[in-house]
C-alpha cells in the first residue's frame, strides 16, 4: 500500500514540475510572438539592428527562432525530468 502511495506521490510531483516548466516556456512563447512581435511592435521598431527594425524582425524572424529553441530546450529538460522521476522509457 505504501509503495503505491509513493508512486502516486512521485507521479503528482512529476506532473507539477512538468506544468511549471510548461508555464515558463509558454510565457516566453507568448512574449516573443504576441508581445514583442505584435503588441509592442511600434515601440520596438524605434530600435534597429542593421537594416532591421527590431519589432519587425521579431515578427518575421526572431519569434520563429525562439520557437525552435523552446521546443529543443523542452525536449532536453523533459528527458532529464523523466529520468529523475524514473518514468522514462
Amino acid at each position, binding site marked *: 500500500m505504501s509503495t503505491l502511495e509513493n508512486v502516486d506521490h512521485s*507521479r503528482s510531483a*512529476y*506532473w507539477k514540475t*512538468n506544468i511549471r516548466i*510548461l508555464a515558463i*516556456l*509558454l510565457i516566453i*512563447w507568448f512574449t516573443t*510572438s*504576441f508581445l514583442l*512581435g*505584435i*503588441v509592442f*511592435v*511600434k515601440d520596438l*521598431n524605434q530600435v534597429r*539592428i*542593421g*537594416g*532591421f*527594425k527590431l519589432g*519587425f*524582425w521579431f*515578427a*518575421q*524572424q526572431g*519569434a*520563429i*527562432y525562439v*520557437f*525552435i529553441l*523552446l*521546443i*529543443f530546450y*523542452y*525536449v532536453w529538460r*523533459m*528527458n532529464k525530468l*523523466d529520468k529523475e522521476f524514473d*518514468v*522514462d*522509457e
Partner: protein
Amino acid sequence: MDILTCTYIIVGLTFLLYIGIAIKTRASSTKEFYIAGGGVSPLANGIATAADWMSAASFISMAGLISFMGYDGSVYLMGWTGGYVLLALLLAPYLRKFGKYTVPDFVGDRYYSQTARLVAVVAAIFISFTYVAGQMRGVGIVFSRFLEVDINTGVIIGMIIVVFYAVLGGMKGITYTQVAQYCVLIFAYMVPAIFISLQLTGNPIPQLGFGSTLADGTYLLDKVDGLLTELGFMAYTSGSKDMIDVFFITAALMVGTAGLPHVIVRFFTVPKVKDARKSAGYALLFIAILYTTAPAVGVFGIYNMITNINGKNMDALPAWVQNWQKTGLIKMEDKNKDGLILYQKDQQKNELIIDKDIMVLANPEIAGLPNWVVALVAAGGLAAALSTAAGLLLVISTAISRDLLKNALAPDISEKKELLFARFSAIFAVVVAGYFGVNPPGFVAEVVAFAFGLAAASFFPIIIMGIFSKRMNKEGAIAGMIIGLLFTLGYLIYFKFLNPSLNNKENWWFGISSEGIGTLGMILNFMVSILISRFTPPPPKHIQQLVEEIRIPRGASSAIVH
C-alpha cells in the same frame, strides 16, 4: 535544353522516385497503413511533417502574399510556426502515449462517448476535405504553368500519382515519400533565394540579406519603405491591420495548426513519447528553413518588381517580364498613353497588376539561373502540393475506415477487410478531392482559411482539457465542441456569404476579422465546456486513470498494441 524539356525530365524523375519509394515501403497491415507501424524515427517524422505541413500555398504563394502585406504578413509567419510549440509542449507527447490511430479515437475514448467520436469524425472529415480541394487545384495550376498542359489534365495526373502511393503505401509509404518531397521542395526554394540575395545585397544568406544594404549603401528595407510610400502604399515595415486583428489571426492560425488532424496524426507514428517531443522540434526546424526565407523572398520580390518595371518604357522591359506577361501573372495597360508603366496605389492611375505567385515563380529567371533551376521550382511546387494532399487524404480514409467502420458500424470486421476498406476509402477520397480540383467551388481559398478557425474552435480545447483536466467530462466536451464550431462557422458564413458587404472593421465584433474569429471560438469552447462540466457528473474512474496514464511517458511502446 529548353525549359519545357528540362521540366518534363526533372518532374518525371521526381515522380519515379516517389513511386519507387511507395512500392518499397508499402503498408501490409492496418497499423502500417494508419501510423506507419509506429516505428518512424523522430528525424524522418520531423521531415515528413514539414513536407506534409508546407502546401502548394506555402511554397508558391506565401512569399508573394507577404510582399504585398509587408508587416501584416507576419500573421502567417508566426501563426504557421508557433503552433508547433503548442504541439510539442501540450499535445504530441500525451497523444503518443495514448497510442491509438486517430484524433477521433482519442476524443471518443477520453470522453467515453460515441457522440463525441462522431462529432470529431465529422469535423475531421470536413476540415480535411476543405483543405485538400485547394491542394489538388494547386497541383493543376503548377502543371498548367510549367508543363503547358490543361489545368484539369494536371489535376487528373496528380490524382493518379497520389492514388498510387497513398493507397499502396498508406502512412508508411507517404512518410518516406514526404521525406524525399521535402528535399526536392527545400532545394528548389533555397537555390533561387540564395542567388537573388547575393545579387541584391551581396549576402548569400537570405535571412540576413534582407536586413543588409544594396549596392548604393542604403538598407534594402529602408529603400523598399521609401519606394512604396512614394507610390502611395503603406511603408513595408508597418502594417495596415489593427493590432487586435493581427493578434487574433496569429492566435487562430497557431492554435488551428495544433488542432489539425493531419498534423496531429503524424505524432502517432514515432516509437516513444520522447520521440514525439523531439520530432515536433525537427518538424519546426525544417519548416523554419522555408518560413524564415519566405519574408526575405517577399522583400526581394517587391523590390525587383518596382525597380525593374515602374517608370520604365514598355518596350525596354527585361526579358523575364515579357515571358511572365504571356502567362497573365504580370498585366500592364498604358492608361495615360505615355509609353511608361506606372505602379500606383491609386487604382485609377495604376498600370501594373502583379500576381503574388510570381515572387517565387519568376525568381530563377530574375537571378539569371539556368533552365534546370526553373524546372526544379516546378518540381518543388508539385512536391509541396502532393505531399500535403497525400497526408490529408490519409486522414479522410482513416476517419472512414477506422473511426466510422471499425469503431462505430462494424466492430467485428477482420483486419484484412479493414485494410482493404481503408484503401478503398483512400481512392474515394482522392476522387472527391479531384472533383473539387476540377470544379473548384468559388470559395476554395476562403475555406482553407476556415479549416484553421474550425480546428482551433473544435479540437484544440477539448484535446487540451482531455489531457490537463481530469474533471472534464463528455457533457462539457460535446457542448464546447459544438458551440465552438457553430459560433465560428456562423460568423464566417455571415460575413463571407450572407453579408459580404458588411465584411469590414466597423461591423466586426471587437474588430476581429473572420480569419481571426477561430480564436474567439476557441475561448468560447473552453468557457462552455468548463461551465457545463461543473454542473454534470465527473468522468468515470477508469477515464480518470486513463488521464493519469497518458501523463506518464513510460510504457508508450507497449500501449500501442491493442
